[in-house]
């Protein structure tokens, strides 16, 4: 096993498999799913190997084709990248296993194509976090975006229209990112992130660099779903197929947040992002508005997936608030929230998919007595919902704890108040669903007709149930391990310069 080539294997193996799958799947359809699982498992093992190496020996540099930077493309995996790579692989493997039963019901006959595009989306996400070259991020960003558009369009009646809206808005975001890269290239002549971080400090007074920073902020903000640029998010998350929502919701916005950290704190120094332009101050206020806005609109939704989508907008606000707060505790809170939110939202959307699979309804009003029909699913939902609200010892409490500590340390009492109020608002809409699941009487058609029929416990299929329960257990587990995660893993991932 050649350990030196691991950084490129995490990207190349899924890419090659995604070319093999349509060919082999055309010959024999049942081969598609095992190949996807094998590809993601190989990437998962490689990512664990990378993470061990990075945490023992420091960042890995891998030069593609042997060309030294800045002439060649360099992959640079430091602690933040290793953390994201492991996170993406774990969630991908779980959702891939989850998707088998769900896609067979929602898109029959198209499973081979679904798995091919799914694997390409995985490639795009992995490539974005391991690369150290600005234009390479754009390439992988577009790979992941195009495949996400295609996957969302498979969804229910409104899927194609939501996907078209996402195409138009998402392309604008990627083009703004490309413009930012172009402006930096004009001024410095380099595309390598480390090279740029050395050349740029002398150029901070140049207007080109300032405009490039603003282009980056708007472009990555569109991809992240930050407050005014979020309009594609509810439609795309709600009308996608269940497995696709469960895959895109935990990951795509978080990789967007990773891109934001890379651009604002690795390429541009923290001194630029905090002092030269008051970008981080403005963004922290925008994030605060996003938190409150997402929570309030989520309360009024009666469609479960739309409610979770608006909740995602609010959670992206938490992450950006933590990142732009300006001290180490807040930043660690933001990074911890990336990890926790991926598990929580993955579990929630997986539960929504299981409920749709069995009950064929997404309306919260129809969830009566669900805890008798699908007890384990309801338990997973309850654990994830408690974590979103922020109740110890689940994981959500600890990320909000670190965010509040960071806000207290920087003496932003308004942010402390906003985080606490939003936890209360989260409680309102999550407890509404829990109440419907656990305490409301039966609302299915037979009960409405007045007949009394015995309740049949019909749990979700096992291939959907096991990943859901693993995600819910992960939420609890991550809560207990939060201190260890922050002290040993995340403390190295904070960019230097943030005190």
């Amino acid at each position, binding site marked *: 096993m050649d350990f030196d080539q691991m950084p490129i294997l995490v990207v190349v193996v899924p890419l090659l498999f995604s070319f093999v799958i349509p060919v082999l799947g055309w010959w024999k359809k049942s081969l598609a799913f095992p190949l996807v699982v094998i590809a993601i498992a190989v990437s998962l093992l490689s990512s664990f190997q990378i993470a061990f190496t990075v945490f023992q020996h420091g960042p890995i540099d891998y030069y593609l084709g042997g060309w030294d930077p800045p002439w060649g493309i360099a992959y640079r995996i430091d602690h933040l990248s290793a953390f994201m790579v492991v996170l993406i692989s774990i969630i991908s493997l779980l959702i891939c296993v989850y998707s088998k039963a769900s896609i067979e019901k929602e898109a029959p006959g198209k499973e081979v194509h679904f798995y091919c595009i799914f694997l390409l989306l995985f490639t795009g996400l992995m490539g974005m976090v391991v690369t150290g070259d600005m*234009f390479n991020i*754009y*390439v992988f960003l*577009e790979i992941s975006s*195009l495949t996400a*558009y*295609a996957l969302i*369009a498979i969804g229910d*009646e*409104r899927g*194609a*229209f939501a*996907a*078209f809206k996402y*195409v*138009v808005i998402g*392309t*604008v975001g*990627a*083009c703004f990112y*490309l*413009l930012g890269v*172009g402006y930096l*290239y*004009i001024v410095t002549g380099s595309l390598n992130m480390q090279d740029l971080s050395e050349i740029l400090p002398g150029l901070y007074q140049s207007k080109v660099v300032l405009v490039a920073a603003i282009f980056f902020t708007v472009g990555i903000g569109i991809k992240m779903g930050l407050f005014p640029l979020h309009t594609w998010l509810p439609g795309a998350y709600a009308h996608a197929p269940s497995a696709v929502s469960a895959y895109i919701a935990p990951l795509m916005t978080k990789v967007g947040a990773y891109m934001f950290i890379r651009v604002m704190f690795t390429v541009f120094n923290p001194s630029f992002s905090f002092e030269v332009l008051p970008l981080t101050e403005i963004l922290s206020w925008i994030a605060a508005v996003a938190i409150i806005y997402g929570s309030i609109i989520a309360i009024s939704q009666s469609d479960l997936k739309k409610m979770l989508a608006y909740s995602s907008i609010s959670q992206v606000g938490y992450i950006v608030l933590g990142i732009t707060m300006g001290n180490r505790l807040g930043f660690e809170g933001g990074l911890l929230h990336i990890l926790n939110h991926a598990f929580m939202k993955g579990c929630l959307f997986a539960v929504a998919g299981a409920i749709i699979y069995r009950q064929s309804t997404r309306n919260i009003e129809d969830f009566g007595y669900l805890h008798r029909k699908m007890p384990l699913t309801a338990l997973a939902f309850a654990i994830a919902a408690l974590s979103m609200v922020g109740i110890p010892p689940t994981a959500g409490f600890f990320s909000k704890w670190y965010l509040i500590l960071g806000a207290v340390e920087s003496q932003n009492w308004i942010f402390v108040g906003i985080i606490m109020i939003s936890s209360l608002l989260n409680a309102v809409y999550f407890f509404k669903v829990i109440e419907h699941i656990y305490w409301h009487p039966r609302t299915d058609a037979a009960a409405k007709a007045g007949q009394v029929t015995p309740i049949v416990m019909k749990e979700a299929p096992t291939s959907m149930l096991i990943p859901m329960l693993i995600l819910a257990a992960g939420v609890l587990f991550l809560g207990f391990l939060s201190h260890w995660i922050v002290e040993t893993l995340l403390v190295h991932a904070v960019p230097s310069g943030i005190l």
Partner: protein
Amino acid sequence: MDLLLSHFNYFIYIILMMVGFYAMMGKRNLVKKLVGMNIFQWSIILFFVSIGAKKGGTIPIVEGVHGHGVDVVVQAGQYVNPLPHVLMLTAIVVGVGTTGLSLALLLTLYKKYKTLEEDEIMRKL
């Protein structure tokens, strides 16, 4: 006037980009929105290619040294910068992929709703 003439590629790309942006926002037909998105993307590609151009520059191929492993000293100012062209090849492919995907989406939408006007689709949703 001097600024306009010396940086005319910037002004052209900005005007094209705003035309595309207006089409994306202001037009109601989905195909027109798609064309606006295309104009938006291609204006950026034009801009990138234009920044590589140099006055009196020639094609960036050094003659007679291919495959010999010999190092030759060249004056970079005489050759047009090839890197933006290479980057934009990737961006062109991305644009083509996005256009193809969007046209497939529009086909699906037309089959389902029998119209491609945004307001009529929103009413039928």
